[in-house]
Each structure stands twice: as C-alpha cells, then as structure tokens.
C-alpha cells in the first residue's frame, strides 16, 4: 500500500536552472515566485 504522499512535485534544484531573476517582492518562505519562465 502507498504509505508516503509527496505534496510538491518540483524540487529546489529545478529552480536553479531559471531562478535568480530577482523580480520577486522583497520579503523568504512566503514569497511568491514572479518569474514566468520558471513557474
């Protein structure tokens, strides 16, 4: 039986490719990413 449910599919390392644009609001946990290329 399935005993583990994962809530999020993307991993942090995925954001290393297109992240770092700096367009998100200056606050980091509750920040929203505003990089459309990434999201």
């Amino acid at each position: 039986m399935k005993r583990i449910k994962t809530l999020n599919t993307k991993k942090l390392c995925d954001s290393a490719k297109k992240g770092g644009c700096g367009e998100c609001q200056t606050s980091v946990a509750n920040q929203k990413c505003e990089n459309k290329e990434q999201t």
Partner: protein
Amino acid sequence: MCGVVVFCSNPIKFARLLWLRKKKFKQEKLMIHRYKLGGMNIVIDVYSGSVHVVDDLAYDIIGMCESAQSREEIVSEMINKYSYRSDVTKEEVQDCLNQIEELRQEGRLFAVDTFSDMAGELKKRNDGVVKALCLHVAHTCNLNCAYCFASQGKYHGERALMSFEVGKRALDFLIENSKGRKNLEVDFFGGEPLMNFGTVKELVMYARKREKECGKNFRFTLTTNGMLIDDDVIDFANREMSNVVLSLDGRKEIHDRYRVDYSGKGSWDTVVPKFQKLVKARGEKNYYIRGTFTHANPDFLKDIETMLSLGFDRLSMEPVVCGENDPERLTNEDLPIVCEQYEKLAALMLKREKEGRPFTFYHYMIDLREGPCIYKRISGCGSGSEYMAVTPWGDLYPCHQFVGDERFLLGNVWDGVINKEVRDEFASCNVYARPECANCWAKLYCSGGCAANAYHATGSVKGIYKYGCDLFRKRMECAIMLEAARAADGDE
C-alpha cells in the same frame, strides 16, 4: 537500500561499514525533519524541498534510515513494534522500504546539499542592483508607543519630514540603480508616513510618470498607525498602494497598553473604525492588519480572534523587537505559550476554512509549488544590497532597523553607496555564512533570518537571534501542516 541503510552479514565488517556510512551521511549533508502535528506525520526533505505526509510505519522507518540502521534491523524492529497490527507484515515493511528507496533515487528524500557553491551567487550576479527602498518620509509620530523600535519614530535623532526633492532624488536613485529589473518597490514608512501625506502623494505621482518613461513597475506599500486616515487617504491608498499595513494589536486593552498618544490616551477607538472603512473600500486589494505581541500578551490568539470579530481577514502578528532589558521583551517562559498559540492558530484557520470563513496569516502563507527559487532561499531579504532605507535627509542604511546607527551609514541618494565595507558585509550575508544555520532544517525557508535581529542579539549581522529561530521553526511547522491538511481535504 534507503537513506543510509547498510548491508553486511559479518558483524565486524558491518560495524565498520556502519561507521563509514554514518560519516558519509554527515559529509554528504543530507537533512530531513520529521514531526507530528494536527494528527499528521510530516517529513521535510531539506535539500530537495520535498514535503511528505506519511503513515506511522513510514514515519518510523524514515527515522531509522536517518540513524543508519540496516534493512534487516528495520524489518525486525518494525515487526516487533507493530505486532498488534495484522497489516504490518514483513512484506509490507519491505514494500515501505522500497517506496523510501524510490524517493531517494528520485532525489526527493535524503537529497544531498548541492547548493553551497551557489551561496552569494545571486548577489554577485546582481552586484550593485537596487530594487526596493524603504522611504522614511517622516521621522516623527503622532503616537508614543512604548515598544517602538524607532524610538517613537525619531530613530534616536531629531524629528524630520522628507522633502519632495529628497524623495524625488531617492526614486531617481532607485531607477538608475535598478538596471534590468522591472518590478521596483517603495514602502512609505516612518514614524508615521501620513504626517507627510502631501509629499507621499507627490512622490507617487512622480513615480507613475517615471515608470512609463523607463518601463518600470512601481509597487507601493504604506505602513500606518491609522490616526490620520480620512476619505482622501482611503481613496489614494486604495488606488495607488499595492499593499497597506495597518497597525492594530488586537484586544482594546492590549492595543491601548502601548499604542497611546502623547497625552497617554489609547488609540484603539480612533483607529478601528478608520481601518474598517479603509478595508471595506479596498475590495480585493492586499492589506494586512499587523499586530505586535509582547510579554504582556503571549496569548496572542485572543488578539487574532478580536481582529476577526472586527471584520478583518488578512492578518499578521509579530513578536516585539526591543532591547534586552525592556519589560515588553518576550521571555523564555513565554516561548512554550507562544508556540502553543501558533498551533492553535493553525487549528483555528482550518476550522474556519471548513466553515467557509477563511482568513490568512502572513507567516502561514507558504506555497510549496511556486515558492521562491533556490537563489532567493539562500540569499535572503537583500537588505544592504538590493534593499535599503532612506532617511528624511537622504542618507542610505541597510534597512529600516539600522537607521540611526551611524556605523551602518551606507551613503546617500546623491552619491550612492560610499561605505563599501558595510555594503560588502551585507552582500556576503547568506544562509551558508552563518555556521549556526548549518544543521537547521528550516534554513532554506528563512534564508538565515533577519540581519537586524541577529545584530541586536549578537553584535554581528551574521549571527543568529536564537529566540526568533525557535519561533520561526514553529511557524514553518504549522504552515507546512496547514498545506498538508488542505491537500488531505482535497483528496476526500
């Protein structure tokens, strides 16, 4: 094999292998955090950012994997522990181990830290870019709050109002130094910014003109105690401010204990109707009712409930920032009370969501799917580099909490950043620059925390404010539990 499980039939070789594997576990910097809250078992994998909700058996096994036990040991121990349950068989334990191994292979559990080389990369990449200013348009205030970190708005200096010319130059400085950034942020702050409302309006008008010329997008915030709110302010704020932060501490007796005018009269009766009118007229635009809790009200959930009863539904409640000997300061005895309040707050949010009366709490608004990128998680708030505070006379400081401390004077809006030493110190602030953060599971949620809090607690901007860390971790546990509970509700 799961996280750090080892296999060997020879006991001497096994012990050696186990020691080597534990050593490797430490060297590879794997980290998970397991906790139980709200009737759920939650496992956070720090370096993948994955959040798992697991049953009791998987919760135990993941813990055993972390402590480097062999597969045989795990099976044996689980069969013994769950002997009263017919569904926990040897095959089921093996199957659970396989599920864990599958997640490890996918990089979603026991993921390795591959980010340390990125530390400082974002700030290096954005060297010299400024994208946000906290404009201190008034170093004066019409309230005399005892717990004010800004010494009643004067920041340990003289009363002053920012002129339009200084503010205009600050906006030009921001545009000139924003390079390729489109989104620029300006917070009108004080003291009480509405004591200089005319200048605020002029500056917004000027920025709107410049943003069209420069292809920028200004997002304005107003932080106010509410005393001077009138129809003109409401109309202006709801048209031009992307966010308004309204200071209200909750219960009348709590609010009026500290938030008094210069004759000692409480401000609750004056500001509440004004806030209600502003929020009602604001529609769907963003606002926060922002309270402060102190040693006088570690039971701050009652204040949240008061805010809700007044019709407010976007809330923020913050621990007081004050000196070590101030009577308002939260104590070690307050800590368990505050942590329990955070848990009860999360339960209240779930209850009201089910009743169709939801509300938001700033620190619980995390998005597990579209949260900040890894660069942002490492580098933090950007104070002293991409974010600065501007005094009424145009001096630059790393952020509003350093204003008035001459050691942190960066420069001014005419000459830019002159004090490279302070700038470089803040530019090198990141989660990997703080050794105390190395083994903290929450470090990629807080990115090392607030430099000002660290400085006031330890004398170094690269220190940590331990009390704040304890509160932050509890808030994150609650916020992630809420996401897990919502996901579970969606499955039903």
